[in-house]
């Protein structure tokens, strides 16, 4: 199955290649060819791969996904205003099947200091701005899916924040997976470059529309330059017909800070790879994750943090709530390189299982090659606290309400660090709604 999928996708790539933006740009061609080669050699991951032991992608590879275009899409202004987060003041960009849609976006209103561009456009008009960054964060491509993303590289969004610029209003990017008539695939490649000392919050939302199945195979590369502070909220709200393979690869320079949230509220099969390289002294990364899964949902978070330089800090805190036959995987790898003295690293993964049939595989993995470090990690798997449940019921609160209250209390502390308030409230409400039905 895997082999056939490789053949099919490589053939599709070959057909499409001449139409991809800047087909003659040498470094870009090299990047795409690298992806093709890697996919050809390594193939797609299988259960035999240590990093994919618990996540079976066969069902996904069996489906004939067509590369999505926007021709067949039914995303309009009404959809956008329906999807918008109430009372969140932000700059908004809408991307459908990987392609930014100018008339649904207010990118032109984005203040000086933030440049939001279509990757395809920029590859043609000013590729020099991309060359230093694109593909540099994932050498080589970690697995077949990222390799495929490189092979098809062309669509996506580029966000550049000028040095020293500080923004209060977040930038919201709505990635719509649209599949009206056939199973559709999008492979956006995004790039966020936060210039020295800049500061911005980016909200990346993934939603789905249409009756057919969607596959989002997205790769986002992030560069946080010295002393910059970038916050990235990733909110997965696709449908149970959605497959989501997401890669986030961030490099942090001296004194910078990167806060990333991975919030998964929907999606049939979700795999998130997140790799952060702390490449400059004193850099700090805070990773927070929340996954709520039910039915037969499968959610896999694979994170890696590399402490490559001294005096860096990493905090990682993931929580999951699993019901029915849902399954989740958490793999948190932290590597402290020999030069990374005075590292402070803390990691936790806590899980709440609401049914006997739900399953979590959690694996913290610390590799420490320096001697002067402070590292702590822990994972827990538990059920609802019976004592607390009885306490609430003894006050007249109905059992279902009490359960919901306790689940919410468990999940919410991941969200308390979210700002602005309107975004946090939206997320809290979303979690509450999910628990209610």
């Amino acid at each position: 199955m895997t082999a056939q999928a490789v053949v099919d996708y490589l053939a599709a790539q070959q057909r499409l290649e001449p139409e991809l933006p800047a087909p003659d740009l040498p470094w870009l061609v090299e990047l795409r060819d690298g992806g093709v080669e890697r996919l050809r050699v390594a193939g797609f991951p299988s259960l035999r791969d240590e990093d994919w032991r618990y996540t079976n992608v066969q069902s996904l590879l069996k489906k004939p996904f067509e590369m999505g275009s926007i021709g067949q899409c039914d995303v309009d202004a009404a959809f956008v205003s329906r999807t918008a987060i109430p009372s969140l003041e932000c700059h908004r960009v809408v991307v459908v099947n990987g392609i930014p849609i100018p008339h649904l976006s207010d990118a032109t209103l984005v203040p000086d200091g933030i440049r939001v561009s279509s990757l395809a456009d920029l590859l043609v008009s000013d590729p020099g701005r991309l060359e230093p960054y694109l593909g540099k964060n994932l050498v080589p491509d970690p697995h077949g899916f990222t390799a495929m993303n490189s092979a098809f590289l062309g669509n996506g969004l580029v966000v550049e924040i000028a040095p020293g610029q500080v923004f209060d209003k977040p930038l919201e990017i709505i990635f719509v997976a649209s599949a009206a008539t056939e199973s559709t695939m999008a492979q956006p490649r995004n790039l966020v470059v936060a210039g020295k000392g800049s500061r911005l919050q980016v909200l990346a939302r993934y939603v789905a529309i249409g009756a057919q199945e969607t596959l989002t195979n997205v790769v986002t590369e992030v560069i946080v330059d010295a002393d910059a502070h970038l916050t990235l909220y990733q909110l997965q709200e696709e449908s149970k017909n959605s497959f989501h393979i997401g890669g986030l690869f961030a490099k942090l320079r001296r004194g910078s800070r990167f806060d990333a949230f991975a919030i998964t509220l929907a999606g049939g099969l979700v795999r998130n790879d997140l790799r952060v390289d702390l490449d400059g002294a004193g850099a700090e990364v805070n990773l927070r994750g929340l996954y709520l899964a039910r039915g037969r949902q499968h959610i896999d978070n694979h994170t890696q943090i590399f402490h490559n330089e001294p005096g860096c800090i990493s905090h990682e805190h993931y929580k999951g709530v699993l019901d029915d036959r849902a399954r989740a995987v958490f793999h948190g790898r932290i590597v402290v390189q020999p030069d990374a003295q005075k590292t402070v690293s803390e990691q936790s993964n806590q899980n709440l299982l609401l049914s006997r049939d739900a399953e979590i595989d959690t694996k913290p993995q610390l590799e420490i090659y320096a001697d002067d470090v402070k590292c702590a990690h822990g994972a827990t798997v538990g059920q609802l606290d019976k004592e607390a449940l009885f306490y609430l019921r003894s006050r007249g609160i109905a059992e279902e309400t009490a359960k919901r209250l306790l689940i919410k209390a468990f999940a919410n502390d991941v969200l308390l660090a979210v700002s602005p308030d309107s975004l946090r409230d939206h997320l809290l409400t979303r979690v509450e709604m999910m628990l209610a039905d």
Partner: protein
Amino acid sequence: MLSISDLMVEVGGKPILKGINLDIAAGEVHAIMGPNGSGKSTLANVLAGREGYDVMRGSVTYGDHDLLALAPEERAREGVFLAFQYPVEIPGVTNVYLIKEAVNAQRKHRGESELDAIDFLKLVRQKLQLVEMKEEFLHRPVNHGFSGGEKKRNEIFQMAMIEPRLAILDETDSGLDIDALKVVASGVNAMRQGDRSILLVTHYQRLLDYIEPDHVHVLANGRFVKSGDKHLARELEEHGYGWLEEQADSGAGQSAA
């Protein structure tokens, strides 16, 4: 209002309550005393509906309800309140949220509308004053990080907000300093009105100096071995439980008034 008849309860196959009889009329205050492990909390928990207890025999009638047939939340809405011996910490749920949900659950059950924010706050302030609790406790997670005494006060605060018809206080006096004991006692006394009944579980005469019971019962080894008026508590303070336990071992349990 409450009538317990021949109640036998096991935990994990082990008999804990071995035939309890107790009648509490509306407006009465009953105190239960007895050695550690005699089954006092078991009785309180069974009345409140905690899981894990097997009722093997007997019945509990509360008003016109078969109390044991009701879910814990239904008992609470009918006016049963348990102040826990060990109040539970609930990180992530604020005290004020719990109280609001609790009060509104009662009101809804009685067919009343929810309290509006202003009336609710007014009531909260008034009751906080009653137990001399600072307002900051409202916004802290339920019992989380509270000192032992603060937890007990919080139980009485909740009771004052909920205004139950039958309040069961399981060792609410344990772990309180003298001043806190007075505060809690006056909180309870303020609640002592009309047809509200109170069941106090305590080890100490001291509490009964402040809250005078109508009846005192001694529970030993799962049975009531003696009942009397408030003077019984003083006797126990002087002589301990030994003489009663011997009685209990040699004969069948006695019914309580």
